[in-house]
């Protein structure tokens, strides 16, 4: 899919909470092997954090890099499955916090882990069609895994904001994107339920890998490239293993995946995952580098995007904290503290 106008990413911003719990600690509590764990540790939001506060810091960082008057934004869209309010938009709070109200479209988007890139697709279309000069898309989550469930090891918190604008101001220009969806119930959470459920190994081949590889291949054929032609490749990161396996299936060199692979350090930030990986790549990519980013959301679908870095990246990169700084700012907590912070002890 291409746009009428030439557009790109004019600002980006990340945020990862400070607290970490080691996977070995979770395994110890539930009587599992502390060595065979999906990631080293995962991020845990502090007791005063939620998807909204995370979105706000990511959004502020994006505004700093774009050096944009927030009033020029035509949309603030937040993709998340951990809305602080079931009914009442997170996006209106974010828009107010950054000073983008009131002439703006604000809404929350939901598509499991690809809600963030779904919002990004929307923003690309909004700006690409000329409806607005700028639009902000945020992918953010404070994911909750049921205690003792396999997903408890990875369900993490973090987010990233992308501002879409004219190609002339872009730090990365947009070539094309592809959305690939089917009705595949690999993971879900019913209304009023606290924790999601999943279909175990069914989440692999027919779900994650099928959608990721097909979205990537379709995008590549549209832009006339092979996946391995890109300098950097980011996949949705439910754990440390899946993205590397997807790279293998698509013939992508592993070194191209590593810079955007952050799940081993902070876990799966759900709707924040692919966009945080994208932010981590923006932190290091050089002008002229090409970037392939493929998200995955259960239920199920993938969005794939092709970007090319411009000279502007070198000017704006240091105007806000990078992903590495947030990953490096870490405080280990034990399972009991984690249980308290995440309100796993019901009172």
């Amino acid at each position, binding site marked *: 899919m291409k746009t009428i106008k030439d557009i790109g990413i004019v600002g980006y911003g990340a945020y990862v909470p400070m607290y970490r719990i080691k996977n070995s600690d979770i395994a110890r509590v539930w009587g599992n092997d502390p060595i065979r764990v999906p990631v080293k540790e995962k991020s845990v939001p502090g007791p*005063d954090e939620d998807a*909204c*506060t995370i979105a706000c810091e990511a959004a502020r960082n994006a505004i700093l890099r774009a050096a944009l008057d927030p009033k020029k934004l035509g949309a603030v869209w937040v993709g998340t499955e951990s809305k602080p309010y079931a009914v009442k938009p997170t996006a209106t*709070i974010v828009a107010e*916090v950054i000073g983008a109200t009131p002439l703006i479209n604000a809404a929350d988007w939901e598509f499991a882990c690809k809600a963030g890139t779904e919002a990004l697709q929307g923003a690309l279309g909004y700006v690409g069609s000329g409806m607005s000069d700028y639009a902000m898309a945020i992918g953010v989550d404070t994911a909750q895994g049921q205690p003792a469930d396999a997903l408890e090891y990875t369900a993490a918190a973090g987010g990233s904001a992308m501002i879409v604008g004219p190609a002339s101001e872009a730090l990365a220009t947009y070539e094309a994107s592809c959305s690939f969806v089917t009705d595949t119930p690999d993971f879900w959470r019913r209304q009023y339920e606290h924790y999601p459920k999943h279909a175990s190994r069914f989440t692999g081949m027919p779900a994650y890998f099928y959608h990721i590889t097909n979205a990537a291949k379709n995008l590549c054929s549209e832009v006339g490239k092979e996946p391995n032609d890109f300098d950097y490749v980011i996949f949705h990161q439910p754990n440390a293993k899946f993205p590397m396996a997807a790279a293998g299936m698509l013939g992508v060199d592993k070194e191209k995946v590593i810079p955007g692979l952050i799940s081993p350090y902070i876990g799966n930030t759900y709707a924040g995952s692919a966009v945080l990986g994208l932010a981590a790549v923006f932190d290091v990519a050089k002008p002229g580098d090409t970037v392939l980013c493929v998200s995955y959301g259960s239920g199920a679908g993938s969005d794939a995007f092709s970007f090319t870095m411009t000279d502007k990246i070198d000017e704006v990169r240091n105007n806000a904290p*990078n992903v590495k700084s947030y990953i490096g*700012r870490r405080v280990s907590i034990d399972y009991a503290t984690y249980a308290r912070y995440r309100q796993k002890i019901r009172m």
Partner: protein
Amino acid sequence: MSVPRHWRESVKRYRLIGSKCKACGKVHYPERTVCPLCKSRELEPFQFKGNGKIYSYTIIWAPPEGYEYCKPYAAALVELEEGEIVTTQLTDCDLEKIEIGMPVEIVLRKLFAYGESGIIVYGYKFRPVLPIL
């Protein structure tokens, strides 16, 4: 639970908006409608940058009702770059390492919530300045 009371203050709390006296130039936080310095009633909104250093602090071990969720937590008087002092909570900080003069920066956090079903009140807190790696 008073919704209008929190709504009325929310933007000022989100963006640290106080006032500036058009007559004498003094900036105030919280916002004022009369300048206590020169008694002028001509004031305009003024947004503080949100950078400052700790003037004094405490660690709250016996919180008021509604704030138990993050106990123990630090509170501080933060002297802003622009000169005013703001009362705030500190977040994301090592309670053992806080000291007078420590540089801090604004972040947006949950201040408190009216139980499981009421509104969530967001506002500024301050944290130690994030080291850039």
